């Protein structure tokens, strides 16, 4: 067990962080909005953490104090939230395809800006970000609570009045508006919450990966997140979490299979490098055959029922 954890420490923490990022795509989706802006806020959060830790807080030698990481997360959350409001208020008047396009444009613009500003280190980015922990696995102390808290938050949200408002908007925006559910308020709420969460994940990831540059949080990331949500499940918060965990682990598992040996060369190569091919195919198959993803509310109810039967 100890060797397993030691070998896969990077992967395990990445899985958890990916699951949280998947939730950031899920939040606007609850309101029926496809927003791929999360990678932009993720990148922003990472840059804030990177800049603060390397240039503003001057750390001494040794481990970086964990309280400062939390401060950075708060800073990232605040800035992402403000930017989310600024971008979201005008953008969320758009519907459907147009919002998706606007968020794609937003991520691209942020990427170019990050590539060119001096403070973000240009093309090289920022490296040598101080570590608060001495080994990779200890990041779980930050990542896992973040995941659990966000899952708790979204679960409560789903059952709350706000959650029902979001679902009403997803089902039929005009009818919901006619019933007194303010579309702009709830859509911006979902969007901003998602931005805040993505910013926090970015801040943690910057320390976790140790360097940060404009290649973090790009359109590619949006594709990954869409795969997590579409395959995992788009109607319940468990779906994106499972999708994020499983699909992040999948390339490693495939690489393991490829390394076992005895496979023809092209197949082994495919299993090693074909991550994006598989994700792309999964997205396409998912939309055609499993539009609600694998983990659906029906499945959860079914599992819940089976567990309760012996007690009746």
């Amino acid at each position, binding site marked *: 067990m100890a060797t397993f954890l030691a070998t896969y420490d990077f992967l395990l923490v990445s899985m958890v962080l990916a699951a949280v990022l998947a939730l950031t795509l899920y939040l606007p989706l609850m309101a029926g909005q496809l927003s791929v802006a999360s990678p932009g806020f993720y990148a922003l959060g990472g840059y804030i953490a990177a800049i603060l830790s390397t240039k503003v807080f001057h750390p001494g030698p040794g481990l970086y104090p964990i309280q400062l990481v939390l401060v950075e997360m708060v800073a990232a959350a605040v800035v992402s939230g403000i930017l989310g409001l600024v971008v979201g208020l005008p953008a969320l008047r758009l519907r459907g395809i147009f919002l998706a*396009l606007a968020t794609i444009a*937003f991520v*691209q613009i942020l990427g*170019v800006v990050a590539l060119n500003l001096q403070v973000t280190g240009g093309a090289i980015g920022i490296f040598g970000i101080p570590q608060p922990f001495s080994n990779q696995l200890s990041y779980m102390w930050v990542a896992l609570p973040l995941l659990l808290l966000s899952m708790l938050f979204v679960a409560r949200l789903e059952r709350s009045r706000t959650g029902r408002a979001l679902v009403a908007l997803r089902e039929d925006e005009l009818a919901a508006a006619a019933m007194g559910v303010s579309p702009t308020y709830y859509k911006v709420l979902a969007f901003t919450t998602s931005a805040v969460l993505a910013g926090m994940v970015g801040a943690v990831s910057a320390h976790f990966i140790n360097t940060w540059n404009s290649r973090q949080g790009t359109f590619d990331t949006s594709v990954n997140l869409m795969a997590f949500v579409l395959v995992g499940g788009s109607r319940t918060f468990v779906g994106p979490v499972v999708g994020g965990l499983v699909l992040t682990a999948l390339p490693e598992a495939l690489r393991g299979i490829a390394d076992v040996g005895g496979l023809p060369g092209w197949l082994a190569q495919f299993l090693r490098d074909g991550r994006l091919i598989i994700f792309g195919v999964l997205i396409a198959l998912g939309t055609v055959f499993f539009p609600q993803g694998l983990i659906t509310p029906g499945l959860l109810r079914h599992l819940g029922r089976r567990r309760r039967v012996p007690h009746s």
Partner: protein
Amino acid sequence: MLNGLAIGSVYAIFALGYTLIFSVLRIINFTHGAIFTLGAYAAYALTGSPLGINGLLAGLTLPFRLPFVLALVGGSIVAAVCGVIVERLAFRPLRARGADPLLSLVSSLGVAVALVNITQYLFGAEPYSYPDPLASLPSAVNFGTAGQPVLVRTVQVVIFAVSMVMLALLTYLMNATRTGKALRAVAEDTTTSSLLGIDTDRLILLTFIISGFLGGVTGTLIGLSVGIAGPYFGIAFGLKGLAVIVLGGLGDIPGAVVGGLIIGLAEAFVPAQHIAYREAVPFALLFIVLLVRPQGLLGRAQVQKV
């Protein structure tokens, strides 16, 4: 400025294929970028050139060599065929279910990513360039006078000419032929058109064939102009193409060309000290257009039916 027009006409041809599908089906076909890449690579292979060292097909050379123009056509036919396959697999099942266009967009995105990565897997990620095909023509055309030459690369003139010809052909097709009328009917309302005896499936197939062929032509021409930088250049174009078609008006064919030229000019006019931000210009324009005038310059405002 001529540079801007040259870049712009590149975007314009790309956008023509994009907007054609939107005009008939009301969906954004992300795979256009991937098919464009495939067409470029197919044309490359058909010129008999050796494939690179990184992909699965490393070192493979087709046993024949075609002159460039034939390779262009051949590559575009391959692209068109791929377009048809994509339509069958990714779009038709969703259309049969009457799915939201957003779902088709996501599905096409998945297919595009898969296709581009398959291309990378097969051909490798390094840059390719075509063997010089226009050797018979002068390498540049002089638009100015002998005293003040304004030189434009021949290939850019060719691209501009091709885009204008394509625009003319497509406009003629849509407005003056019977098939064009049928296509516009399908665009208006698919169900009613089929009730009126129009074979919608066949027409949609035709749309994908034309769009795929255009994509292949664009890819090869652009590959000729700037070299193929790698399979991902299709995705980059695909994203910028979105800006072009939204600016011109989704589904509007002349709009695609206008949008392309405008974005090309806008990129060319970025002042030198901000040259690094040139890549952001199309997306900034896209964002602004979406907020201010989502129907684009030439489109009609979409009235939402209750």
